[in-house]
């Protein structure tokens, strides 16, 4: 229903740059998530899209119509942007019942009473709150209030739906079921969604693309698969999933592969790492290997790497271990039920290495 573009978007508070140079085109019907730690600028960016904050540089367009531009002096206030928003605290109005909360946006669209009633009933059905019309917020649970907030945003049939950490105040189980419901609704009604969260599971499970942010700067914009399997830098590699960072030196390079030497003090271990981009790497690089991509086996004579098992914690669905060779300590998640002894020498197999510039 709408293509949203953020062009060179920046927000400065005094001397502090909260959001710097955000460029992204959100396709019509796409579910895109701003993901990052607290203070990374994701909520500020969302509030700029909504119109609660004016940018200090750059512009925002919907279907190529400018709704905000610092350079051109254009700014459409929030009540004119035709966007729906669900707030972290739900912001359901305590002095109105569910019906009036959900019907409120329709007040500004000149519908007849019957139409309003019909739409409210339909929307409440959508969010599975049939029959809740007369209830007041203080008579409802957090999850129910959240659905009221969602209904209130959806009833506008907005071109873009904005969600600001909507699930963070819910308990874990409810969070999970709401995740599915939101995605299902979106796929059915086909609206564009901009979602903000610090929870990587939410981001990974719901989004078509993820925008990873740190300290106001966009780190990577990619699909969940790519963000996980091909992180563009250390921050992304570490923020999503867990990562072992292994310092290496490039020994030689072919078109699609490099051979690196692990700097573990011994210099005896080499890895072959696929190269994703065409860029030139400096000699010193970092290789990322995720804990679940390392196999730990009883010591064999076969060629490969060996190390000392220095820690082992049985979690149930996995063994959380630490293996050391040379100066390097690797975090490992293995599925095997074999119990090693602390201090035992083991064989390790390193799979799926990812190459990063240091």
């Amino acid at each position, binding site marked *: 229903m709408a293509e949203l573009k953020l062009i060179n978007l920046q927000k400065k508070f005094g001397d502090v740059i909260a959001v710097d140079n955000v460029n992204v085109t959100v396709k019509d019907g796409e579910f895109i998530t701003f993901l990052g730690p607290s203070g990374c600028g994701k909520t500020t960016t969302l509030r700029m899209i909504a119109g*609660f904050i004016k940018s200090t540089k750059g512009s925002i367009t919907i279907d190529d119509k400018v709704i905000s531009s610092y350079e051109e002096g254009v700014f459409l206030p929030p009540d*004119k942007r035709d966007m729906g928003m669900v707030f972290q605290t739900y912001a359901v109005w305590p002095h109105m019942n569910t019906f009036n909360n959900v019907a409120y946006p329709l007040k500004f669209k000149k519908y007849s009473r019957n139409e309003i009633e019909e739409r409210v009933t339909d929307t409440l059905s959508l969010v599975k709150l049939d029959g809740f019309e007369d209830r007041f917020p203080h008579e409802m649970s957090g999850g129910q209030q959240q659905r009221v907030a969602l209904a209130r945003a959806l009833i506008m049939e907005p071109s873009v739906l904005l969600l600001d950490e909507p699930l963070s105040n819910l308990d874990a189980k409810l969070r999970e079921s709401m995740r599915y419901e939101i995605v299902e609704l979106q796929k059915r009604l086909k609206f564009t969604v901009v979602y903000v969260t610090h929870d990587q599971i939410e981001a990974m499970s719901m989004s078509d693309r993820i925008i990873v942010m740190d300290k106001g700067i966009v780190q990577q914009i990619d699909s969940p698969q790519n963000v996980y399997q091909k992180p563009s830098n250390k921050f992304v590699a570490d923020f999503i999933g867990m990562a072992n960072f292994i310092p290496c030196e490039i020994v030689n390079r072919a078109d699609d592969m490099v051979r690196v030497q692990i700097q573990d003090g011994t210099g005896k271990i080499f890895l072959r790492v696929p190269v994703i981009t065409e860029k030139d790497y400096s000699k010193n690089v970092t290789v990322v290997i995720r804990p679940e991509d390392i196999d730990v086996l009883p010591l064999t004579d076969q060629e490969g790497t060996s190390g000392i098992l220095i820690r082992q914690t049985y979690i149930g669905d996995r063994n959380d271990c630490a293996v050391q060779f040379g100066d390097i300590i690797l975090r490992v998640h293995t599925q095997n039920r074999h119990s090693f002894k602390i201090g035992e020498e083991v064989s390790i197999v390193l799979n799926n290495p990812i190459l990063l510039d240091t």
Partner: protein
Amino acid sequence: MFTLQSKTNFRDNANTYLKWGIYGAGGIIFILLIVVILYPSYTLVKTSFYADDQLSINNYIELLSNQTTYIVFRNTFIVSFWGALGATALGVTIAWLLARTDIPFKKFWRTTLIIPYIIPPFIGAIAWVYLLGPVGYINKFWMAITNTFDPLWVIYGQGGIIFVMILYSYPIAYMVTLGPLSQMNPALEEAGQISGAGTLRTLRDITLPLMLPSIGGSALLIFMSMMANFGIPAVIGFPKRYFVMSTQIFLTILNFDRANNLQIAAALSMLLVFLALITMQLQQWIQGKKSYAIISGKSSQPQLVPLRNKKYIAVVFLGLLVLFTVVLPVISILATSLLRALGLPFTLENLSFVNFSRIIYEVPKVQRAIRNSFLLAGGSATVIVFLSLIISYLIVKLKVKGTVVLEALVLLPYAVPGIVVALAMILAFVKPLPLVNISIYNTIWIIAIAYMARFLTFGVRSISAAFEQVHESLEDAARISGAGLVASFKDIVMPLIRSNIFAGWFLSFSPALTELTLSMLLFSVGNETLGTVVYGLHQEGKVGMTAALSLIILVFVVLLNRITIRITQGKMGF
């Protein structure tokens, strides 16, 4: 996709006009505040440095070389110091008993022990004169049973002032320390108990030191209010020619025979303000020392201390307190108002409502005072609410710069002793206003303006708090749903702060209704207020009528309080 442009033009304009309207109104209000608050302050300061129509420091020299000044200084200090000490000790003890022990009848204590706070202090003083004056009920009773003419104790003078002040100020300490005491992290005391400290030891070594900021803060608050108080020293000090700074300033202003009397009064006022400012700074400093984070985030209630056999002592103690602060004064006023004439014994035939009918029908100034006080209080409360809405909106929602200045300006007429405010008003407005060439001096308008300036802070505080409670996201949600500034304010903010607006009105109305200090200096014939009439009747010795009017006022004040509680669903009111 986008809403039709033509239909929203009206709303656009309304929003823009509203925003500019508020800024405009804010500007006008700022100027108004400068005229009504800053200008009189400036005049006061200036006048203190003028003698015989020239710039001079003679006023100060004369004051500081006069013995009376030092006596009055000393009296003020003694009375305020011991009063604050006593009231704080009493208030904290009550708070501790109610918050931390298992004393029975808590609800009863809570409702009755707060009553002294809503009784106008000078009426409390008058009630005690009926009890412990030279022919007061207690003294006469004492003389009867001891068969002498020696009274038990005549309340006039220093001791009496301290006594009455303590009885009517302890609620401040009680209210300030009750919260922290109830919410204190129990682990702090439990750690003490586990280490071997008993109840009293824990109290002494752990609880009290941790409560020091609140206790110290409330002591200073009470000290400040006592330094500024006029009604109690007037009623109880004058008969024995015992003066404090506030009453001395009053006398100086009325002493037309003395050269430069207004200027000297101004100088003395400056000294009083100076003392008040120092105390206020101390108070801010002490309450700011919240480096003791004693309130735990979790809502675990502190364990109640079992009083066991001391329970009876505690109940008797609080019971006596209720007797002294509420029961005795009310009974004495009631009794006095129902007696046909002073001195008659209490037999049924001597009781009547004649005093009530006389003050209402036979004393014109009482009728005028009732009318004036209601008009003044109601009018200023209404204006205050309007001003507060705009001021609070500017401060909390629009977050304009310079709120510190605005807030200081609003607070000033309340923080400064009433007698000083009255003097400043006289000095500023005795001359005709420019342009209109009318003097508001000796009219009801000068009282109205004084009331508005003095109680504005109540309105601003309660409405600011209300605005702050309406979380920003509630308005954001309205905005994104399509509501402009006007609609968002009308549909979301107003409904949520409605009860606070009423509360703000009542909080400004109540003190204005029974106010004494300002009107004592600003009234003239025809512009009397309830306070001045009660005081006047008391001075004239018309005891029965004084008591009757006082009783009516008391009933009304308690009623107002109940209404405030009801309207704000218990959130405000005492």
